[in-house]
């Protein structure tokens, strides 16, 4: 075990901008990330083979992060699997493990996509839009020949357009929010012309590609034997309840479905941070003050892992928390802190208003809980059907930790990530309570699978600042 002044978990937009803020003040953080390259999910970098044929300019934040990498300690392919008192982070890399302690721990773990269970959702060929995007964007692989994109939120348009450009036929984008709601929100978005313009550009490109956007519709079933062959959609009301008398079927070999994102809060929970339920930004999020420190002293949260708000907000939050940690360490004075952070806080407040409008339009609707039938898998790892989960709820499994013990829900390798958000909604519906009243998931270390061999091979793990260079990514 060894001590660091600052450890940053995650090298997405929040983690990278926090690291750069610290580097500028002469603080040398340890940055860990479980991917081979920085960027997180949103600024995912192409693989060497794709890089060689890509004409794209590198994301400027990733570019600067790589340029400054001798000024911080940097561990790739390193997974954080637990936090123990006080601010001791358990990590594993290449079948070795270590525990590293920090004076300040900045969590920037990001978010993952939310997809509630529906019949056929475990068939090969059904995947999240982000999963399909990473294939196309970083490796130039088409997930299939014909893909229906369905769910809710602006991200669907981005992915549909990228799939189309890669040569995948996209018969339609299915959006749960109705046309009236989307248009109704427009006046409140006008104060952010640049972001609105970006959204309009994606709509235009879809129209030009001849891809219909079916608003007020919901994906209700994936069909096929062995892999997906058909997608069934239906119009829905404003609560997301499908009208099963008016279904439409698309012949497809791929379905990309997602209803927004869920913050990864497990590390914060294990660090003892108090959580708050904010449905609009993904459910349970750590409670933070105006400089993003949680209720646990020295534990900070930035980016989507603290509430889903996208890459732009994540970059700003990363910088804000980075400056705040530097001030706490005495690396910058109060005057510098104010000068750096006041504009960031103003910008964040402005963006929050824009986000709130979008979050309302593209919200999770109760009708989604009606999609799974009795036999539909709810917990993908343990293969528990909705009827089995409901049987557990009926005999007292009315909160997630109890239901877990009774049914094995969430005990598989994903450790509940995939099933708990939808299960919380199912329990709420069954027991007539709010999702907030059902309470959060209770993560236990390890939150990611760790081999016994890695636990036994416990040794001081050091930064490997040359790994990225070996990947050939730093050449420019």
């Amino acid at each position, binding site marked *: 075990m060894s001590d660091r002044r600052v450890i940053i978990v995650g090298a997405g937009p929040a983690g990278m901008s926090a690291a750069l803020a610290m580097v500028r003040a002469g603080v040398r953080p340890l940055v860990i990330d479980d991917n081979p390259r920085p960027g997180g999910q949103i600024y995912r970098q192409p693989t060497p083979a794709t890089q060689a*044929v890509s004409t794209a300019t590198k994301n400027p934040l990733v570019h600067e992060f790589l340029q400054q990498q001798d000024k911080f300690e940097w561990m790739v392919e390193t997974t954080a699997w637990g936090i123990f008192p006080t601010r001791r982070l358990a990590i594993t890399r290449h079948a070795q493990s270590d525990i590293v302690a920090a004076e300040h721990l900045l969590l920037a773990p990001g978010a993952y996509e939310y997809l509630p269970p529906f019949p056929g959702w475990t068939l090969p060929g059904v995947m999240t839009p982000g999963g399909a995007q990473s294939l196309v964007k970083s490796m*130039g692989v088409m997930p299939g020949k014909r893909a229906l994109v369905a769910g809710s939120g602006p991200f669907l348009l981005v992915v549909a357009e990228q799939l189309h450009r890669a040569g995948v036929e996209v018969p339609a984008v299915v959006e749960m929010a109705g046309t009236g709601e989307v248009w109704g929100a427009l006046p409140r978005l006008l104060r952010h012309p640049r972001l609105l313009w970006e959204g309009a550009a994606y709509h235009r490109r879809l129209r030009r590609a001849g891809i219909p956007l079916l608003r007020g519709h919901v994906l209700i079933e994936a069909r096929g034997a062995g892999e997906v062959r058909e997608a069934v959609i239906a119009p829905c009301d404003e609560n997301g309840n499908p009208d099963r008398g008016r279904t439409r079927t698309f012949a497809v070999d791929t379905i990309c479905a997602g209803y927004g994102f869920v913050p990864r809060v497990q590390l914060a929970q294990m660090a003892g941070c108090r959580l708050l339920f904010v449905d609009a930004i993904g459910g349970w999020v750590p409670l933070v003050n105006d400089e993003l420190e949680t209720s646990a002293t020295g534990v900070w949260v930035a980016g989507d892992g603290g509430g889903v708000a996208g890459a*732009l907000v994540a970059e700003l939050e990363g910088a804000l928390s980075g400056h705040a940690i530097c001030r706490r360490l005495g690396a910058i004075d109060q005057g510098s802190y104010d000068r750096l952070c006041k504009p960031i806080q103003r910008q964040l407040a402005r963006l929050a208003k824009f986000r709130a409008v979008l979050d309302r339009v593209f919200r999770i609707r109760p009708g989604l809980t009606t999609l799974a039938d009795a036999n539909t898998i709810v917990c993908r790892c343990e293969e528990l059907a909705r009827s089995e989960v409901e049987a557990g709820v009926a005999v007292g499994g009315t909160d997630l930790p109890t239901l877990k013990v009774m049914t094995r829900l969430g005990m598989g390798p994903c450790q509940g990530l995939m099933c708990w958000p939808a299960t919380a909604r199912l329990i709420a519906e069954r027991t007539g309570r709010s999702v907030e009243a059902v309470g959060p998931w209770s993560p236990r270390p390890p939150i990611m699978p760790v081999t016994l061999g890695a636990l036994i091979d416990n040794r001081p793990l050091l930064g490997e600042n040359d790994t990225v260079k070996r990947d050939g990514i730093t050449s420019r």
Partner: protein
Amino acid sequence: MSSSNREPAIAFDLANRSVTGTVKFTFDGQELRAHEGDTIAAAILATGERCLRVTSRRSEPRGLFCGMGVCFDCLVQVDGRPNVQACRTTVTNGMRVETQHGAGVVEPGP
């Protein structure tokens, strides 16, 4: 999520991708090709194959789902070792990948 991310313009011959790759590996005994830096899942999907494992309880096929290492649905056997995430593991020359059945099988080491 913000739509401001810049995606590369992909210039691959996508349809012939699995023929032109320089990395050779096998999937269930069949020799396949991948490009440098491909994940196992991407290299297999590029051939049109979708099923990566068969579940223990219902014996149902599963494939790539989240693509970012959180769902653990794309588990495969690699060189006799089960529970390898196909979406997060880079394919290498000579790698032996197999569909994982249930909990998989640990082959004795050399």
